[in-house]
């Protein structure tokens, strides 16, 4: 059974339909990257998986079950999201923030256990935050905050990990580290990872599958070589690009032509 199946879904917000007739199957153990220009529906597609948008038509299935028939808690045990933006209200510590990722496993009253502490510590280490765990989230940098959000999603220990622009605001070291970590988790633990990216070259290096969205529809889906062609990218992004062979890997390397 596929982990996630999106069957002919049209969805969006009360005034506006963003995605139109999207169909997609996502297999376990793969990194799927959603690409597309601003407003093409990448985030909306992620939100549809969490039943956070109005689905007008079609079905989103998680492990064979329709997402709108699952409780919030059941969804949180299957899917974790590291959002693009989040404005916390009170200055919790990094560790406290990551710990809340365990909520769906513990109910609303039950205290966290030693097992949760271990999982939280592992997530903090994996994202390079162990040193900062007692820092207030109002006192850390934008990149550190982004890693905190990723750590919280990792602490949920779900089979599917969704990351909305996880590398935005991170310096080069952490861009590579986070994406490598995510890819390793996907391959070793059979996790399904869905992420949105703006950097076409990072996508081309790290993705097992790329879905290119354009105006709410899937323009192309497949491996990097299949999707990232000069003609298609120039068309979707409405700017001229050149696709070269990557100097190190067998992946396409995209440069804009000014």
């Amino acid at each position, binding site marked *: 059974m596929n982990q996630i199946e999106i069957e002919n879904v049209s969805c969006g917000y009360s005034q506006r339909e963003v995605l139109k007739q999207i169909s997609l199957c996502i297999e376990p153990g793969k990194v799927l990257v959603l690409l597309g220009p601003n407003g093409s529906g990448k985030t909306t597609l992620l939100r549809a998986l969490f039943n956070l948008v109005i689905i007008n038509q079609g079905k989103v299935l998680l492990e064979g079950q329709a997402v709108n028939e699952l409780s*919030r808690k059941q969804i*949180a045990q299957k899917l*974790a999201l590291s*959002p693009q933006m989040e404005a916390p*209200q*009170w200055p919790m510590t990094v560790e*406290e*923030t990551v710990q809340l990722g365990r909520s769906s496993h513990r109910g*609303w*009253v039950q205290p966290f256990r030693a097992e949760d502490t271990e999982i939280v510590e592992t997530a903090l280490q994996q994202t390079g935050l162990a040193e900062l765990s007692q820092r207030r989230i109002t006192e850390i940098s934008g990149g550190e905050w982004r890693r905190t959000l990723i750590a919280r999603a990792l602490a949920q220990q779900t089979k599917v990990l969704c990351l909305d622009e996880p590398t935005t605001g991170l310096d080069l070291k952490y861009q590579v580290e986070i994406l490598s970590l995510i890819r390793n988790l996907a391959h070793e633990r059979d996790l399904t990872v869905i992420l949105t990216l703006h950097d076409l070259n990072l996508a081309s290096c790290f993705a097992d599958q790329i879905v290119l969205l354009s105006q709410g529809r899937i323009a192309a889906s497949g491996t990097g070589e299949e999707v990232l062609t000069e003609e298609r990218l120039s068309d979707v992004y409405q700017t001229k690009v050149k696709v070269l062979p990557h100097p190190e890997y067998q992946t396409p390397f995209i440069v804009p032509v000014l």
Partner: protein
Amino acid sequence: MQSRQLFLIWRIIPLAGFLLVALLVGIHWGAVELSFSEIRQNFLNPSEDSQMSLILWEIRLPRVILAACVGGGLAVAGAAFQGVFRNPLADPFVIGASTGAALGATIALLCLSGSVSILSATWQIPWLILSAFIGAILVVGVVFIIAALSQTGRNAPLLTLILAGMALSSFTGALVSLIMFLNHEMLATIFNWLLGSFSGRHWNEIRLAVPVILFSGGLIWLMSRPLDLLSFGDETALTLGLATGKFRVIILVAATMCTAACVAVSGVIGFLGLMAPHMTRIMLGPRHGLLIPGSCLLGAGLMVMADTLSRTVIAPAEIPVGIVTAMMGCPFFLFLLISRGQQTK
């Protein structure tokens, strides 16, 4: 991490100590001063003939206990409102629960005014509490609906909420004034009630209000983790597994119930619900599991202190305690506004 949590629990002890000292001072001070040895003696061996025993058991004890419960209740309700609305400036007063309760209580006082002595007859107090509760929940409900209707983006419209709360507070305040204006003979009773006071309160009020305050306060404490999750915003709370709508309603109803019970027995006492959670947050951090019991202890201690001041500063006359808390609270509120402004710069 376990040891850190223990360390945090230890930090709550000074707050408990503060409350204990406030209670003792509150029992000690007054028109007749009770020495600590007299307090101990009469506490352990109450006798019906001794005047000291009577003062202790019938005047001071019910008064400080009620003040502590109302202070704790308002502080917990304030923490809950701030958490659920993700707004550091929210308190029971700003959102309109207090004035809603005041309107309900005023109407009840008016309807019961045929009876000889208002507030002294036991059977009237349940009606007063019920009426205050209904008033509070109606006003908070309307404020909440307005905020929900005006929600345009993904974030809760904090400004709309404050504005709607302010507007409805003014509106219900005006209704209360209108009732007072049209009923001259009730003016003093209603006005005295509105200013907030623990004067002349007995075990009856405690028996009626305290179970409601304890129940709703306890319920809010149980909602600590949902409150923590809500502080990250609705969408994150949803993806972390919280059915936000349901929990928001539970917390709002509990906080409104708590506020209504407090207002019904003591009148409108402002600023404490705002002040205590913020002071506690500075001391214990923002996690609601500690914040709520901490706020409760601090709010209780502060209220007992304010009440003691209110009846000793110009003794034998009393200042309504609402005036004391507002005078203590206003400078703090302004400090908060200024420091928030500095932060955003």
